[in-house]
């Protein structure tokens, strides 16, 4: 069967951490918004 054009909707990134890294994000543990006011 003939092949048609195919588009990767996610750029082939396997994981959310790869997505964030490609976006240049350096969040707490990769994907956590850490509020300094947050009491922990």
């Amino acid at each position, binding site marked *: *069967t*003939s*092949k*048609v*054009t*195919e*588009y*990767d*909707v*996610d*750029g*082939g*990134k*396997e*994981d*959310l*951490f790869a*997505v*964030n890294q*490609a*976006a*240049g*994000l*350096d*969040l*707490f*543990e*990769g*994907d*956590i*918004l*850490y*509020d300094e006011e*947050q009491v*922990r």
Partner: protein
Amino acid sequence: NSLIGDQYLWPTTVPYYFEDDLDINAKGVIMKAFEQYRLKTCIDYKPWSGEKNYISVFKGSGCFSSVGNQRKGKQTLSIGAGCDRIATIEHEFLHALGFWHEQSRADRDDYVTIMWDRIQAGREHNFNKYDDTTSSSLNVPYDYGSMMHYSKTAFQNGTEPTIVTKIPAFSDVIGQRMEFSDSDLLKLNRLYNCTRPTTFLDTCDFELENICGMIQGQGDNTDWERVTKATGGPDTDYSNMGRCTGTGYFMHFSTVSGSEGHTALLESRLLYPNRNYQCLQFFYYHSGNPNDKLEIWVREYDEASPSGTLRMIETITGLPETLWQLHHVSLNVSTKFRVVFKGTKGAGSSTGGLSLDDVNLSETTCPEHVWRIKNFKSIMENTPRGTAIYSPRFRSKYGYTFQMGLYPNGTETSEDMGAYASLTSGDDVIDGDLTWPCPWMQITMMLMDQNADIRKRMSNQRSVTSDPNQKVEGSTMFSWDNPRKVGMEVTDGDGTKYFRGPGFGTSVYLTQARALSREFIKGGDAIFLLSMEDISHLVSSQPLPPTTPTDDLCALIKCENDGVCVMDGVKAACRCVVGDDWSYYGDRCQFKSSIQEGVVTAVVSTVVVFVVMLVVIVVIVVCLKKKYKKKMNDMGGGTTTQNNYA
């Protein structure tokens, strides 16, 4: 592991708001993620209607969330480009609900080794762990299969893993982004004190002798039997495929004996629906005569029919086949009910019968289409890399025809299995009546985890949505236009020619190792569930709650004496009752006055004012008189001028 502190919990129904910048596909996938929460936990979601704290989902640069309810009103959660996968969305919402990553729990060093020298410089802080005064593992064992666990390659600076599992078998298990693991669900349900999931109704694999409370119906001729094998087939059940001695039961209605028209009813326990729609899913083995049939009925109860009224839903069609077949039946029940499996012996002789296994009932929509791939492991191994296999063309209820392309042995760019969805040409007349480019249809490709219990399935799914405005790269043609216009003519295995539009999907659908795990392949076969859903209702903005919550302000004021609260500008005020010669007044209508009282008050007030003014005038006149007299005396040198005579 969860953040300790009740103040970080949300109510079990979480308010959300979709910001306008969210992709339409992302909105659709978020709705699917919410459905998984409803199916497997007591966590529900509702559009924000003015609650003090809510989750604002927006398209940021990446995928991220805060941990727990920060009680700051609008709490943001980003689903950016590349984040519109159900597992990613479930992961971020688990953060929002109060969970950290699994490998940061206090006891993690008992189970994994962090390879500090393989971590990118400056990223070591990502491997912090929290002691058990900060985080709680909720008394659940360390979960390598958690969807909150890093993968072995997280933040690596080379090719060696940054996380090494103490049990090597789990090396490739960590980092799954398919679905909630059993422990993820256990912890979430414990944290929020869940007693039952919102949309789940029943599951039964017939392993226990009580057959999940099912009963043999009355008024029939024979019974369904609980067996491990049946004359004429099947030789094993579907739940265990005969792998475990002493288990592997299913229900069987033999049509070998008996007369034509003999029936057997198997009825579920009483069920109480919340929604008006349900999906019944089960595996069915037909080894009888082609004239034997299985029908699905419901027995509905209400005040008028306390014994229940039977209503026919669907006849299961299909010739006998040496195969456990997957079936879905959509129900629309809104009162207390039972599901009834009615087997009927048809004309002619039979060497087998009808069999049932792995029944699941949930208040969800049914998937539309099933693509079963036999001998899937062999296909994974023997299909050349970069070669796709295609599902049959399926026509959706909207008329559009589509298919899935699968790369079982990886694409040209990735070793993982690739999956793409395409519109195809269908019937000429129907296609001609459709809207092109195809507007906002979400196609979902799900590789089904064939665990008997729907709540324990970790199926892998990805969705793409047809954007009618999207153009083919370097062209003025629309990507989701009629495949006859924008697609390519292809030839089916049987020689049929049709058109296939561009494919949209991912080259990293699932690793082969994960495809071989769990129960993605059962009896040698893989099952893809495909559906197309119209999500155009998600294109418009989510309505904002009223900026002045009228009802709330009026709720704060109690108008007495039958007064009515109304909004006066931005303030709430009481409108008091007025009679012919009386009225209530005051900010809460707490005082009463009459017209007679008013007249008296007015007369008295007038008299008092008159007297006061009279006194003031007299005082002023007296003072002026005295002042004038004194002035005249001063001008006359103290001598009184008189007529003098010599």
